[in-house]
């Protein structure tokens, strides 16, 4: 079922930000593959490099960020060396992104119908006659009730969940092959979150899209993703199918993250807290960036460079002393 050639292939990607107070090593040797019809979850604390990876893949990284090594291939296109013109065509058409806060990502002074229409006119061969019909169709796919009326609404007239649906409609209006959803439900209610996530899952299965779901909620990733990539301080520490990961997590950070997530039943004492915070990403860092917070740390951990190795079929791990 799964296509052997991944749609998005990130290989050994390193990104650094040159700031006044030093060089921040935001990503180091990050690799991940996304196939068609697959939903990949990228989880980690804030500051672990989830969004930077996604933005680099779309090449919308802040000018302060520099790719120092690695390669990104998106459906045969070398993203890092493509011209800006080609990238502009690719974005929206082959790959599109849903941003975190729908209210700030939408233009407040244009109606949502016009904003979806803009995308369609730019990428989707719509002209003035057909654009209205296509916008209605786009609103229908994201199950917005009464699209004929909603097309004239401004973002402030809609609820947070509705705005997020508009964002999804914009992202999906041109049938992209890759969808990157950057914390699509943060700040939304649980009921709305469930509706939005169901919608993303149904649409991506229906269209055989490759989907990257960036979240810090491990429980949500478990519900919706086929494969989970755990990131910590700019490293991929574990990459496995959801089933394998939850059955037998190998990296100490993954286990901690699972234990820290409230599960519903169970007492407060069962919840573990992860000591310390993310290390300062400026300057020299040990090969294992989790070593300062790890309970299983030993001298051997930081002797030489760590790499992401396949410990069992489809299960990748970067740890010297796995569980």
């Amino acid at each position: 079922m799964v296509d052997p050639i991944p749609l998005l292939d990130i290989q050994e990607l390193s990104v650094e930000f040159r700031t006044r107070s030093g060089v921040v090593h935001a990503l180091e040797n990050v690799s991940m593959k996304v196939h068609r019809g697959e939903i990949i979850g990228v989880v980690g604390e804030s500051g672990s490099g989830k969004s930077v990876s996604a933005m680099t893949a779309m090449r919308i990284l802040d000018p302060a960020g520099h790719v120092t090594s690695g390669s990104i291939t998106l459906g045969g296109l070398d993203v890092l060396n493509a011209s800006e013109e080609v990238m502009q065509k690719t974005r929206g058409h082959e790959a599109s992104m849903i941003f975190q806060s729908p209210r700030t990502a939408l233009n407040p002074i244009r109606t949502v119908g016009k904003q979806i229409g803009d995308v369609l006119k730019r990428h989707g061969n719509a002209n003035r006659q057909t654009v209205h019909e296509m916008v209605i169709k786009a609103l229908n796919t994201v199950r917005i009730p009464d699209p004929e009326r909603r097309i004239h609404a401004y973002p402030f007239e809609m609820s947070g969940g509705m705005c997020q649906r508009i964002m999804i409609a914009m992202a999906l209006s041109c049938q992209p092959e890759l969808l990157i959803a950057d914390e699509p439900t943060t700040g939304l209610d649980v009921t709305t979150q469930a509706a939005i996530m169901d919608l993303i899952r149904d649409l991506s299965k229906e269209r055989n899209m490759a989907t990257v779901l960036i979240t810090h909620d491990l429980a949500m990733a478990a519900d919706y993703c086929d494969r989970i990539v755990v990131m910590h301080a700019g490293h991929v520490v574990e990459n496995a199918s959801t089933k394998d990961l939850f059955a037998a997590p190998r990296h100490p950070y993954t286990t901690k993250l699972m234990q820290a997530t409230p599960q519903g039943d169970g007492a407060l004492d069962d919840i573990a807290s992860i000591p310390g915070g993310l290390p300062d990403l400026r300057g020299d860092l040990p090969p294992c960036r989790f070593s300062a917070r790890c309970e299983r740390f030993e001298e051997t951990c930081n002797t030489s460079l760590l790499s992401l190795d396949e410990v069992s079929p489809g299960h990748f791990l970067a740890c010297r002393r796995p569980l």
Partner: protein
Amino acid sequence: MTSLLEVNGLKKYFPIGGKGPSGSGFVNWLRGFNQNVQNHQQMLHAVDDINFIISNGESLGLVGESGCGKSTLVAMLSRLTDCTAGQITFAGKDISSIPANKFHLQPERSELQIVFQDPHESLNPRFTAFDTIAEPLRRLKGMAEKTELARKVEMLAEQVGLPSPLLGRFPHQLSGGQKARVNIARAIAVAPKLLILDEPTSALDVSVQAVILKLLVKLKKDLGMSYLFVSHDLNVVRLLCDRVIVMYLGQIIEEGPAEQIFTNPAHPYTKALLAAVPGGKLKTGEVMRLEGDPKSPVDPDPDSCRFYGRCPIGQDICSRTAPPEVVVGTSHSSVCHFLNPPVAV
């Protein structure tokens, strides 16, 4: 257990429409004079007839979607806004009759404290952590002596696990978890009897959230406070609270012991809320999903269930009669037409 806070028929309505000239009495009078139009001020029913009790040493959870009136209720309970109608009795004294802008003069101000939602936004950026924690001590307790103040603030910082070298820092120099600790230290500085926590962990990472939750449980044990814990994270509420109130569009639709509500929810909205929690462990049988948005809270129909239209089991009767309150278990009640009281209670 004696009751610490008692809320009776609490209501908050907001008039819709500006106070500009078009809304003034004279213009309305003229308008009515000329057009014979019935002038009706539209009202947004943010909180509509709420009754509940918080006992001494109890932690009560308050859950519901955004826009259901949780924050308005919190603002009224903490006496930051006035209420339209109803009574709030705190430790035997009716505090709802005191205007909100006079409440800081009352001794109850220091007994009823609140930890606000966003730890980043709710700190004064020009106050160091020390000043932030010392402020309520200076203002409400009249503590002016420097060494005494310093000693007390350091003690509080130790209680919430904030290293004392950080006390000289400004909010932008602190991490999210540290800011949350400063917020909590500020609230407990004046030894309140009731602490209102408005989504204290929603802006934090899971790794930090666990630490803060444990801190809250420890503080409750050490200081004997009662909590009102407002959150939309149901898993967190379940961990921390003895009793839970579920709100929908300004009304309480279900109330009961936490374990009862989570294992055996009665109201269809509570069921949908639980089904929406990611993690899968709570899902039993069919998955319920809510479509659409809540009804408008502006002048809701008093003779209809407010959940009607989104409710998966809604029937004709729901749009004609307001649902009754049904006792479904030991101190567990819910508001719905289709509930059966247990055979023998």
